[in-house]
């Protein structure tokens, strides 16, 4: 026959595991005590159906030796057998039906490890208890070495349980009035049982008992103020949220400032009205980064540390339902308060765009409300996708700046996708919506807005083209002559990305007086052959026509240089030394010419 051995548990080791690995902070001993008290009160309610006087009273006894926290509830209390079973066997919970392993839905805890957390702040735990089931009072004293004593008390006390925690060295901060108030409020704000702290002989109530989402008397302003109190921050609006699956009710508050989608935000997530965690990211869809939530869940399963929820199908479904609440709110807002929606989207547009690029679901939810700058003013995603025109876009702000006037003059739409994520968002439109087509236009590829000149015009402008190409060769700029609107625009300067970088490198080399600028030489060399700029003369423009007729080649060359520099200035390109010199010479010549008249 095989010998059967029992595992031995090192309680000191267990406490270390709880403190250093399972719980993220020692603060949780307050939560565990509150939880036990509320569960004991619920247990008494099950026995005494009409009993409604449940309460939890906490006091801090200060003495010269040490401070003691006393935690009292008038719940069901424990019998001797229950004490041996539930206080002294780790993993055994009074809230479990032992045979069935089922936990009553009203109970918060059920792992049977909560009381152990008190050893993180106290070297001994004293429990005085009297069960509603008998008339005998007991004193249980537990120590972290795994030993405990149990004595019957001679005097009978009222039904309920009192727990005494003496301050363990190094944990003095928990045994102060202010810390106790803050922790009790933090964890127990919404508990459905009154929680009192006795200060100077007076009981101060610390919780509100009715959750704001269950309190129909609250005005929208009061709901906003509730959120502001909790998070110490003002909000733009709030969204009532619920999930049938997760048994969730609460509010999602809209953050009034720009946030990065990956930033961790604090929430207040309650489980059966007890604060569970501030980390609610897992409960919300990842795109809901622009809200902070305070909510209560009744149907989700907490992890053993009770600081998050178990990842299971219920959580997935809940997440989906909470997402729908937020999307429905935004959709409703688009109908009843479009300005408010625009304001919210405007603040969070970058973060929304970043996620919309990654996730189709987010894209579909938000694209209609996002705005894009165009040659015809700002247009929403909805306006773009429902327009019958092909959507032409440019991905450089500088190019847009140069080309938008041409598109506007021709009553054509050009979208500026030069800002972050806009290019990716536009490119996704035809993938996710039928009958939408988009086309990228780059400076070198302007057939949409330019017409070729005729053979006769080509002959007529031969000299301008020839001199211009020779003149601008030193600036690495090629010249062409086209026809485009508006006729007031004499030239259009375009440049590709490599050329832009190349230009900047050359400019830095001119400006900087240190040897490190030559680290850029290798890059400049690689880009030299791939980088080019182009200047288009507009044959519809009267000035260009005058230049075509100009026979003085030197004057023509000087004019071309000036026009080139002007085009750079219009495009906000910083001038290089030779360009600045050209501008100065041109102005000097003009002055001299004016004076000589």
């Amino acid at each position, binding site marked *: 026959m095989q010998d059967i051995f029992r595992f031995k548990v090192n309680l000191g080791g267990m406490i270390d595991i709880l403190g250093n690995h399972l719980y993220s902070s020692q603060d949780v001993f307050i939560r565990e005590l509150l939880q036990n008290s509320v569960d004991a009160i619920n247990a008494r309610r099950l026995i005494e159906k009409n009993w409604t006087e449940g309460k939890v009273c906490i006091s801090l006894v200060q003495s010269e030796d040490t401070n003691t926290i006393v935690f009292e509830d008038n719940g069901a209390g424990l019998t001797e057998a229950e004490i041996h079973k539930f206080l002294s066997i780790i993993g055994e919970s009074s809230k479990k039906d032992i045979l069935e392993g089922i936990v009553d839905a009203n109970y918060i805890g059920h792992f049977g490890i909560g009381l152990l957390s008190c050893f993180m702040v106290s070297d001994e735990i004293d429990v005085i208890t009297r069960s509603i089931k008998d008339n005998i009072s007991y004193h249980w004293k537990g120590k972290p070495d795994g030993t405990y004593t149990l004595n019957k008390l001679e005097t009978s006390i009222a039904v309920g349980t009192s727990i005494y925690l003496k301050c363990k060295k190094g944990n003095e901060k928990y045994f102060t009035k202010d810390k106790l108030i803050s922790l009790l409020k933090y964890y127990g704000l919404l508990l459905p049982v009154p929680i009192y702290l006795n200060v100077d002989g007076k009981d101060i109530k610390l919780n509100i008992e009715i959750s704001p989402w269950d309190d129909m008397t609250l005005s929208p302003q009061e709901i906003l103020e509730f959120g502001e109190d909790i998070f110490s921050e003002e909000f733009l609006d709030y969204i009532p949220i619920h999930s049938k699956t997760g048994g969730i009710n609460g509010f999602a508050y809209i953050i009034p*400032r720009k946030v990065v989608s990956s930033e961790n935000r604090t929430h207040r997530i309650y489980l059966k009205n007890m604060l569970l965690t501030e980390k609610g990211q897992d409960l919300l869809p990842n795109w809901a980064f622009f809200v902070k939530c305070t909510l209560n869940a009744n149907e989700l399963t907490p992890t053993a540390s009770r600081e998050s929820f178990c990842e299971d199908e219920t959580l997935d479904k809940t997440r989906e339902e909470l997402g729908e609440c937020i999307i429905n709110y935004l959709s409703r807002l688009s109908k009843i308060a479009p300005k408010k929606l625009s304001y919210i989207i405007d603040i969070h547009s*970058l973060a929304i765009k970043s996620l919309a690029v990654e996730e189709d679901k987010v894209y579909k939810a938000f694209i209609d409300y996002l705005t894009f700058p165009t040659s015809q003013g700002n247009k929403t995603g909805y306006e773009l996708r429902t327009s019958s025109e092909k959507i032409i876009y440019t991905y450089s702000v500088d190019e847009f700046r140069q080309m938008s006037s041409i598109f506007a003059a021709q009553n054509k739409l050009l979208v500026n996708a030069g800002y972050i994520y806009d290019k990716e968002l536009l490119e996704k439109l035809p993938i996710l919506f039928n009958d939408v087509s988009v086309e990228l236009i780059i400076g070198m590829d302007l057939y949409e807005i330019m017409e070729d000149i005729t053979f006769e015009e080509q002959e007529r402008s031969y000299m301008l083209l020839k001199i211009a190409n020779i003149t601008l060769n030193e600036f690495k700029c090629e010249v062409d002559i086209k026809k485009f609107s508006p006729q007031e625009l004499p030239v259009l300067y375009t440049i590709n990305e490599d050329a832009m970088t190349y230009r900047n490198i050359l400019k830095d080399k001119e400006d900087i*007086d240190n*040897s*490190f*600028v030559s*680290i*850029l030489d*290798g*890059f400049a060399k690689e880009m030299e052959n791939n980088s080019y700029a182009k200047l288009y003369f507009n044959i519809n423009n009267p000035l260009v026509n005058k230049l075509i007729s100009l026979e003085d080649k030197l004057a023509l060359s000087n004019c071309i240089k000036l026009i080139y520099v002007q085009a750079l200035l219009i495009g906000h390109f910083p001038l290089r030394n030779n360009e600045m010199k050209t501008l100065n010479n041109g102005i000097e010549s003009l002055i001299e010419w004016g004076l000589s008249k």
Partner: protein
Amino acid sequence: MSERLDRLIDMMNKSPKYSKERLLICEELVKVADSENNMLYSFEGRKEIIRIDKFTGDGFKGILTFPKLLWAGDEYLKKSNKQRKYVQFYIVWVLESMMYTCDDYYQIEYEKLNEIIEEYKVRCIEYGYSLRVYYKYMTLTYMDLEDVEKVKESFEKFKSCPRDEISDCEVCELRFEVEYELFLNKYEKALELADPIFKGQKKCTTALPLTYEHFLEYYINNNMLEEAKEYREKMYRLISKDEIYLSNMRIQFIYFAITEPKKGVKIFTKHLKWALSSNNADDNFNFYIGAWMLWESFKFKEKREQCKLILPEDTPFYKESGIYLVDDIINYCKDQALSIGEKFDTRNRNTFYMNFINKMKKLVF
């Protein structure tokens, strides 16, 4: 200071850290600061550009920005006595960042690279900072060159230099020590050092995935594939969403090339777009050498001539049908790895990259 510059500074301060939005604002800010000859903000804006590029980009923007930042910082220090410590701190910080980044670009000459390293050392001494980071860099360089004696010597110097405000965070230093111990084949010691990182007791964003990578590399080199399996999975989960880990895909590919190349194909298709959009030559080299080995192994083990893949449209050998010849993929990855490797070897005047290619070949085949 103009109202426009003032507004841009305010916008920069309010914009989320490391965001593309902040980058755009900073680019505008430096243009305006330059035009107003405001050296402090010319420096500040560029420092932010380098910082954002370091944590979210491929380093190219940082390199382009660096010479003018250094110039603006020096000009400012010549003319002003205010905020000197701040400017000096960031000059050293940027130089440190450039030591690593410039090394990744073969376009930067060997002499210039050494000049940056030397400049870093000189500035540390001049501004009163410890040389701890310098010796860490030297240790890593000698590790690449497999010069054991010099590795040990530099590491000792690293340990003997005090920590100060320019030192790497403690977790990153711990990770470096793990790398050092593994280099010396002291597996048990490395494991012991890595324990708090693995347990999450010591945290830093890159420390955990890179520690997994060091061990993964060690396990693969020592044919400990069972152990490698777990660390590969853990590492991939942490690196799969951030483009800064482009080069770290190499070891993922190598693992699959050795074990089950079919599974690595998915990772290749998912991350090829990172390589296509990156300017960082060393990162690309690592990605393509890994991918080359993966596809060679795929061809050999799966006996396939072609396969159907969804690749980015800007893939040079893109096919609308999605059907690709395995040889086309192999050739592209091979050409990329070889041509980049050759350029690095020419720049570095050694054969490190070609040797590395051969080492990877031996590991897989």
